[in-house]
């Protein structure tokens, strides 16, 4: 899932690319959300203990609807305008990864059966999480619900993350929200994590700025993509023995995967026999997405109250009162006028003052840094 260890790598090497933001400060912003990822989370988290899940009378799972309904209302109430992007057909390369996940799930299913038989509660909890799968039915249910709620739905031709990034690049949305670090590799200019986390967890939204990532890592976008492939992505294996940190060092030293392959010790590092890194690179660089002029205009409309009640209450056994309350909340959020921002009135200028703290001659900070290091070293001893 995503890029291995990228969050930590960035936290260590490019701390300025990420900043914590309050959930509330995204009012009025259009945000593209990777729907499949969200649905997967809902299925795992909401109303599930062991093998028991939230279901309707017919025994079909409804956790995803519950999650989609409440979290989307939370976004709308905060004045955020969400757009949900659904996965299309996966690229061929990802099929391998998907096959792997499939077999893992099959294993987990077996393990789960065993755990249920032996009554191993921890095992049930563990394996049932792993057997969760987002089906087409789940996706279709959520699309139907979102449309009834008046929230736009985009169907990506291929990967949802790539489509989200494309929407953001073309200024159709302000930022991309996902839990998958892939979004950065797809060069989404602004990328948010933890936007969909429940408010009870009180985790601030983490905003990543891809331009700052490149600036601080001192890499070009192409080099960053290579770094992500080396770190481990969904599309191909990585080289054993090379993790994020080594990959960053190698990319900085050699500039591209080709050059690295020419230069590294092939005995020490086993390069996979079939290693379609060029294909993977192409998928990140030129993913299959809807081109700019064909991206639909995103519209947020009033909720269809009757439709929502019919779908959630009548078909899926939701509590009528709670659904109606939810619809009221959407309507109230619609009617609120939105808060303007100062940037739309005043333009940024450069400040003329020199920071007192940072204005140190180039020798000083290095000395200080050296001092600090030596101090740290001493303490260790």
């Amino acid at each position, binding site marked *: 899932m995503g890029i291995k260890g990228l969050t930590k790598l960035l936290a260590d090497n490019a701390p*300025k690319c990420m900043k914590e*933001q*309050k959930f*509330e*400060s995204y*009012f009025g912003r259009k945000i593209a959300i990777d729907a499949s990822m969200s649905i997967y989370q809902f299925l795992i988290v909401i109303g599930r203990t062991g093998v028991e899940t939230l279901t309707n009378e017919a025994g079909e799972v409804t956790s995803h609807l519950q999650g989609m309904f409440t979290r989307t209302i939370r976004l709308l109430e905060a004045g955020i305008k969400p757009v949900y992007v659904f996965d299309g057909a996966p690229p061929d390369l990802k099929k391998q990864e998907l096959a792997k996940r499939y077999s893992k799930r099959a294993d987990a299913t077996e393990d789960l059966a065993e755990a249920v038989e032996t009554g191993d509660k921890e095992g049930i909890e563990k394996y049932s999480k792993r057997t969760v799968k987002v089906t087409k039915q789940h996706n279709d249910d959520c699309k139907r619900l979102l449309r009834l709620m*008046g929230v736009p739905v985009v169907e990506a031709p291929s990967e949802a993350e790539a489509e989200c990034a494309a929407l953001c690049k073309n200024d159709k949305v302000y930022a991309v929200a996902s839990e998958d670090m892939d979004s950065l590799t797809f060069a989404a200019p602004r990328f948010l994590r933890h936007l969909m986390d429940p408010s009870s967890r009180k985790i601030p939204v983490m905003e990543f700025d891809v331009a700052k990532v490149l600036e601080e890592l001192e890499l070009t976008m192409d080099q960053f993509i290579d770094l992500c492939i080396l770190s481990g992505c969904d599309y191909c294996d990585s080289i054993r023995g090379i993790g994020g940190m080594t990959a960053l060092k190698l990319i900085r030293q050699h500039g591209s995967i080709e050059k690295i392959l020419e230069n590294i010790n092939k005995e020490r590092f086993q390069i996979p026999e079939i290693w379609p890194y060029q294909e993977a690179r192409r998928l990140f660089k030129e993913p299959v997405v809807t081109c700019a002029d064909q991206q639909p205009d995103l*519209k*947020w*409309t*009033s*909720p*269809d*109250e*009757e439709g929502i009640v019919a779908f959630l209450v009548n078909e899926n056994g939701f509590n009528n009162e709670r659904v109606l309350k939810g619809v009221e909340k959407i309507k109230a959020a*619609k009617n609120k*006028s*939105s*808060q*303007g*921002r*100062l*940037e*739309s*009135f*005043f*333009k*940024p*200028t*450069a*400040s*003329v*003052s*020199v*920071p*007192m*703290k*940072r*204005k*140190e*001659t180039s020798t*000083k900070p290095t000395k200080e840094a050296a001092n600090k290091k030596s101090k740290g070293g001493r303490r260790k001893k």
Partner: protein
Amino acid sequence: MLELRLIQGSLLKKVLEAIKDLVTEANFDCSATGFSLQAMDSSHVALVALLLRSEGFDHYRCDRNLSMGINLNNMSKMLRCAGPEDIITIKGDDGTDTVTFMFESQKQDKISDFEMKLMDIDSEHLGIPDAEYQAIVRMPSAEFARICKDLGSIGDTVVISVTKEGVKFFTRGDVGSANIVCRQNTSVDKPEDSTVIEMNEPVSLTFALRYMNSFTKATTLSEVVTISLSSELPVVVEYKIAEMGYIRFYLAPKIEDEDEEMVPQNQADVKAEPA
């Protein structure tokens, strides 16, 4: 080298109390002309601009333009340690990462030095153009604070409208609505108590009361507040600081959603009717 001595140290204390809830960290800029600050709140809806001109200080030395990144909460904690009558001196040196606040009691029998760590703050500086405002209201600051507080207990937003009759503050909430009108009033004993309205054009704008109530924390700095309004511009709420400068708050108005909302809404209404 930086050394600013302010006889009326309480002014600085009041300034900090007025802005620290709106902005948590900011860069103070020092130049030959004065000590200033510009900062936005985290959601970029409100901006505070502070200026204390160099003439207002008892002693003012600033060799070159410097900025100091400061956590305002921490600075406020330190300034609270100064007595109400104390003289405050701000001292700093190029290339150090601390600033010193020195408090001298009036009788010079107690001198306290508080040293505070500075921080690196990336802040955007916004260029604020001089604009002609459609309406300018000058009124007693305590009166304005009272209105904002009262309306805040009823609703979330205030509609401020200026007409020939006066300035109207209106809010609506779950419990009901409130409407306060202040008429022009210059027949008072003290000029500070007067309400003066200069209007070129009637104007009406909507603002979040939460921010207005935060601005009124500056009420202790001045008996008069000036509110400048123009449609299409943020409101300016200004408090003068004892002949030496000002603190100005800019607040972006609430705007009606420009796009797409209307048509589907009507459709929904039509659909709802037969049922």
